[in-house]
């Protein structure tokens, strides 16, 4: 199931949906644009297009390498457009600050790679849905910090992907989501959304309907891949 909807707050402020995602053969990936970035939606879409064009993009072993290659290609393009170093740095912060979360389904387990704020959604073997919130404060880690020169904290340069493994003996399904799903995680929809997360069938249309009907609850853009 793949859902990506613009948040009500972004709709009111005239900001586009800054999330972007795709799914293929047990591999899921999403990018959640930072609201502070002026053109985060451009960055997420550019990143996904180039990443999907890489030959082994769905391979777990090559994931970090593929992300780095993608960023390098984007930055090569930026440097050809903005030759002034300040404008080049500005372009990075305006476009490339986004969370990256990927989920690989292997034979015996699910592996989630995460860099930034986001949610992991699990359905355990007793069919209970859990929302695991990964939140790192006001300055979440972004991959683009590796290429920023004027950072407040040098620790930002050391951010790498965190890896989480979920055994299939304990979990039936593992999905990923952006922090826009917080109202669902808090139970504001009275758990009515859980049915769609637990379902084995494609219920995108109904699930989207629930989100649209309660649009005022969702300030941030909502993206769920499960």
């Amino acid at each position, binding site marked *: 199931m793949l859902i990506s909807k613009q948040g009500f707050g972004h709709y009111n402020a005239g900001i586009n949906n800054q999330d972007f995602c795709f799914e293929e053969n047990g591999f899921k990936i999403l990018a959640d644009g930072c609201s502070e970035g002026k053109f985060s939606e451009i960055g997420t879409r550019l990143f996904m297009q180039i990443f999907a064009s890489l030959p082994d993009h769905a391979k777990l072993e090559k994931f970090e390498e593929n992300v780095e290659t993608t960023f390098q290609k984007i930055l090569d393009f930026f440097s050809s457009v903005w030759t002034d170093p300040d404008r080049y740095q500005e372009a990075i912060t305006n476009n490339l600050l986004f969370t990256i979360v990927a989920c690989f389904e292997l034979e015996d387990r699910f592996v989630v790679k995460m860099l930034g704020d986001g949610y*992991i959604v*699990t359905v*355990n073997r*007793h069919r*209970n*849905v*859990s*929302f*695991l*919130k*990964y*939140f*790192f*404060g006001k300055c979440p*880690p972004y991959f683009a910090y590796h290429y920023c020169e004027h950072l407040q904290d040098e*620790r930002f340069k050391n*951010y790498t992907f*965190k890896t*989480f*493994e*979920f055994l299939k003996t*304990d*979990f039936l399904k593992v999905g990923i989501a952006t922090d826009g799903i917080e109202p669902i*995680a*808090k*139970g504001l929809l*009275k*758990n009515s959304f859980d049915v769609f997360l637990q379902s084995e069938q494609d219920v995108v249309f109904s699930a989207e309907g629930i989100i649209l009907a309660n649009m005022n609850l969702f300030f941030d853009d909502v993206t769920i891949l499960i």
Partner: protein
Amino acid sequence: MSKKGSKLDAFIEKVFPSKEEIPKKPIMKTTKPRQVGEEYSEYYHGQGTQGVKPLEGENAQEVPKTTKPTTPASPEGKNIPKRKYIKYTQKDLTILLLEESADTSSLADIINNGIIPLVKKKTDNFFAIIRYGEKVDVTPISLFEKIPEEKWVVKSDVKTSAVDLYSALLSFKKIVKKDFVCVCTSKDFFYDEEQIRIANIEIYGVGSAQSTGDQAKKEEATAYFNDLLKDGIQSKYFCLQIEQMKEAASFGFRSIGCLSKEY
């Protein structure tokens, strides 16, 4: 102009009968105020105690026995039931599941100042606390009394690392019951009795989501707790480290967060 005896007159007569035709309703006598401990009969709303004419002869034994007590006959020979006014209210229950170990002691400040006030701020709720370390200590639902302050606080001097989370999860059996209703004497002047129903249950857990119990107990505890959560109970668990979050998910907690913000 309508003639006397017309259909319209008949209709008006039917809808608005003359004063003589209005049947007199029995006047409900007010009862004198009851004293504490005085016995009184029960009368439930919409279920007046009907007088049952006893059968005679062979069928005399077939008279069904009423379980509800009936009032003595009034001087006029009619049973005048005494009403029992019941106030029905709904309350929410908050259960705190608190780990007592060396790990939680090291984060005592964060838990005492960050998580506990978050739980306690719902002052209108009932509370229950399950503290677990090597042993499980269940503080039952506090209906009207306050839970002692020391039960809320995470101590900073605990050194043990043994925690029995599985027994703690099973101890929910002592607290959470289906259709939990508490009956108590009402403090309200108008009502005789108050029935409080637990409408919603929230569980807040704090700890490492680890347990030193055996595998068999884990199966039992996980199955029981997951079944419990399917009844629409909201649950939140605050892990101490990021790596512990998936353990909490396997137990079925709905919303799982982490106290550590270190990357």
